[in-house]
């Protein structure tokens, strides 16, 4: 019973997160402006990180945690690089 519950709810939540990624991707592809795409990418990263966390729960293995942590800690670097590129035309001045 609880096996079924856990497995199905994890699967459901992964699908939800997958759909969330798809939504973010929609924004990336659709635009219309560069800032929308970057925002979409940022959301994509966050969703992916959450997906990794659910994957850790699903496998009951904390070995995948670092990947999530790295997204949390460093994922923003590329986003701000994009943002700064938009604002200033170059990343490092």
């Amino acid at each position, binding site marked *: *019973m*609880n*096996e079924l*519950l*856990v*497995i199905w*709810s*994890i699967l*459901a*939540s*992964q699908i*939800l*997160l997958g*759909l*969330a*990624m798809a*939504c*973010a991707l*929609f*924004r990336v592809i659709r635009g219309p*402006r560069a*800032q*929308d795409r*970057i*925002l*979409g990418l*940022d*959301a994509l990263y*966050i*969703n992916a*990180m*959450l997906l990794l*966390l*659910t994957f*850790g*729960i*699903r*496998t*009951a*293995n*904390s070995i995948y*945690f670092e990947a*999530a*942590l790295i997204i*949390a*800690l460093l*994922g*923003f670097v590329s*986003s*701000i690089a994009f*943002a*700064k590129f*938009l*604002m200033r035309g170059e990343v490092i001045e």
Partner: protein
Amino acid sequence: MTHLTDLPLWAAIPVCILLLAGSAVTLVGSIGLIRLKTFYGRLHAPTLGSSAGTVLICLASMITFAVLQNRWIFHEVLIIVFIVLTTPVTLMLLGQAALYRDRIEDSEVVPRKAAGETPSPSEADI
């Protein structure tokens, strides 16, 4: 090796709820990314995932590992902290960049340079 199926029911229920809630909130946020009409509106959408979504799923993770591996160090906290610290940086920079670009294009929806200052004609040109 431990398996998720070893999770007792009393723990499984909150974990499931937290997971579903977290991912649902995140999904809603991402839907917002589609549904909201303006960029500034969409700027708020990812924060759902980065606040409630992250917290809820991290909580689920904490409970799972605490129960399954009898481990009481919640390193998931780190994720919450870092997400809270770093997401604003992105959004802030993006918001400012968008504002700048809209001002360049003389868009009507954005205010001029911070309140108290009336936009000068030269500024309207840029």
